């Protein structure tokens, strides 16, 4: 493919972003400190560089360069903390780079969150206009698309109700509907598809496919490899703040999956790519006794026992433990959660462990990754680690028939019964 330089949409050169973490900067927040420091070095606080130079510096991005051509739909993948979000924030002009530069040809719209600027006190109608204008749409443009937005969101009846009275599903649908009608030449999208119920997600994917088809330039960040694969032609794999691989989507995803797998090798307790408020940590995961830094092997139909160890700094009133099983395309196949099965463990403190059992593993052979998380009843996430461990599922006798499960048994195995209804005697089998 020969591309003229005139076709360029985004040119990123030597981009770097440095953050200062921990240390004195966190304390450096009150007026008293300004006064003290101003006496030491007058006016230095004006220039922001007042923070003690001895603090830890951390490059979220370093020396990132790539080109995006007009009409390309590019997937950006990488682990949590690899620098994807920082990259999007710089490209969306929310934050400035520490070094390097970016040239963008065309209007940019960014969707880093669903419902940016929504205000609970305002009605659906008012929020469409508010959120639309925050996303950079003109009033006339919003008026023109208003009916379409309302229709897409499926909340016609409640359009004049304050959104604080909406269910979370309605809220998200309205928010996405506004965003989906942005009309910029370049669109930057961060994982917003992970919202709403399955049906609405499908609708969102459909909308994204439409966007991709009409020749707009799209940068799309996701952990969902299936979505990336179906939307994007090219993929950029970001690792440790740099571009690790940039190329055709299939190849890059393959590299990513190869790379992410051995991730692991690092025991759970030492993983730094975790999210949550940090008042507690999931310290180990054993799958049928196999520690998290080894790849465990189980068979389809086996009983699988996950043992999750935790250590918390202060008591947690209503903890929620989560274990998710993802296939190699990043689709969640199984979601185990103490809350959804109605378990209320009560107050937990200090260290402990929790065991989760799946009696007959309903998975066909393949490699799976296990995400684990600990949350609190109020919705606050305490700790979450993606790919906490890997699990190889081997062929096994799920159906108890003496036959082994095979790869082409779908992505999930299900108990099922058959009944033959004979037109003459209506004899039943099984």
């Amino acid at each position, binding site marked *: 493919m020969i591309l003229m330089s005139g076709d360029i949409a985004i*040119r990123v050169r030597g981009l770097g972003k440095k953050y200062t973490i921990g240390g004195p900067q966190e304390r450096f*927040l009150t*007026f008293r400190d300004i006064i003290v420091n101003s006496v030491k070095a007058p006016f230095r606080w004006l220039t922001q560089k007042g923070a003690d130079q001895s603090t830890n510096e951390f490059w979220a991005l370093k020396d990132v360069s790539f080109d995006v051509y007009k009409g390309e739909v590019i997937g950006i993948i990488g682990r949590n903390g690899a620098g994807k979000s920082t990259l999007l*924030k710089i490209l969306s002009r929310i*934050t*400035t780079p520490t070094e390097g*530069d970016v040239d963008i040809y*065309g209007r940019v719209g960014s969707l880093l969150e669903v419902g940016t600027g929504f205000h609970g006190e*305002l009605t659906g109608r008012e929020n469409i206009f508010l959120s639309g*204008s925050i996303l950079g749409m003109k009033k006339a443009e919003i008026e023109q698309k208003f009916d379409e937005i309302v229709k897409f969101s499926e909340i016609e009846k409640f359009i004049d109700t304050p959104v604080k009275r909406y269910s979370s599903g309605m809220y998200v649908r309205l928010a996405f509907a506004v965003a989906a009608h942005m009309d910029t030449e370049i669109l930057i999208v961060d994982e917003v598809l992970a919202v709403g119920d399955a049906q609405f997600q499908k609708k969102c994917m459909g909308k994204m496919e439409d966007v991709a088809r009409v020749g707009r330039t799209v940068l799309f960040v996701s952990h969902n490899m299936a979505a990336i694969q179906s939307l994007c032609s090219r993929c950029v794999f970001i690792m440790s703040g740099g571009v690790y691989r940039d190329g055709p989507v299939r190849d890059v995803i393959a590299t990513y999956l190869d790379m992410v797998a051995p991730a692991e090798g690092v025991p759970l307790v030492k993983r730094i790519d975790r999210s949550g408020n940090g008042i507690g940590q999931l310290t180990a995961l054993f799958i049928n006794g196999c520690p998290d830094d080894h790849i465990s092997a189980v068979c389809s139909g086996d009983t699988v026992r996950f043992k999750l160890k935790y250590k918390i700094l202060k008591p947690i009133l209503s903890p929620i433990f989560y274990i998710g099983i993802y296939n190699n395309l990043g689709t969640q196949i199984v979601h185990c959660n103490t809350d959804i099965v109605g378990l209320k463990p009560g107050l937990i403190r200090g260290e402990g462990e929790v065991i989760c059992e799946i009696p007959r593993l309903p998975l066909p052979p393949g490699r799976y990754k296990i995400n684990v998380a600990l949350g609190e009843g109020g919705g606050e996430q305490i700790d979450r680690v993606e790919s906490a461990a890997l699990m190889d599922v081997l062929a096994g006798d799920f159906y108890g028939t003496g036959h082994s499960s095979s790869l082409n048994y779908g992505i999930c195995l299900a108990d099922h019964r058959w009944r033959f209804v004979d037109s003459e005697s209506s004899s039943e089998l099984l």
Partner: protein
Amino acid sequence: MISTPKVLPHQSPGEPEPTIKIRPPRKWVPVDFHEIWEYRELLYSFVGRDLKVRYKQTALGFLWAIIQPLFLMVVFSLFFGRLVKIPSEGIPYPLFSFAALIPWTLFAEGLTRSTASVLHNAGIMTKVYFPRLIMPISGILSPLVDFAIAFVILLLMMVYYGYVPTIAIVLLPLFVLLALMTSLAVGLWLSATNVKYRDFQYTISFLIQLWLFASPVVYPSSLLPEQYRILYGLNPMAGVIEGFRWALLGTNPPESMILVSVGVVVLLLIGGLFYFKRMEQYFADVV
């Protein structure tokens, strides 16, 4: 399978100018007034949102706009007018103080809101780009509606006391503008600083109280010795308030005092704009 680092070309000379250039932070960033104009609808949206949200679920609604200055007027009239008997240049004290409280409230509300504006909109600011200056500007504009309502009350009071505005009333919009610019100028400094040093959030109401008594709201500036009056103009609100009284009630014109006030505001405003533009480059990282 690590890709070899390729040297990618920079912009070649023949290419068109990029629509957007993203560069590391600079010390001096010019203000792009054209861009702010382009985003004026967002400014209206912010102002509209603040107005709509403000009186939602309140029993008295927009009456709140006038309750505060009216109460202050009553309190001031009782204490400073009746008890302390502060001279009011021959004008009935309620009218004398209300004519000052109106521009004062416009300024004080504008300053409070613009100072809080950046933090207030942090959730939006960290998710989408728009000219950051829109935030403090929307902060000074939303109190204008309250001002208009209170102004009608003032006109009614003037009718009641039998006062006819002087011809200088044509200059009134300029004094309103000066009040707005004063709150913007100070608000730019405080809002940008407030992002990192939350202290200003708590200091602001105290600062405004002090400023109230440093301005000729409860007393006339003629109380000050002649030679200090020009210096008094260093407080821009002194110029604004005396300007209001002159235009509406026919007191002595503020003359040179107002020139000093305008000069101070222009300097504060230009400084504030540059300071804000420099600091906004870090907002999303610090907030």
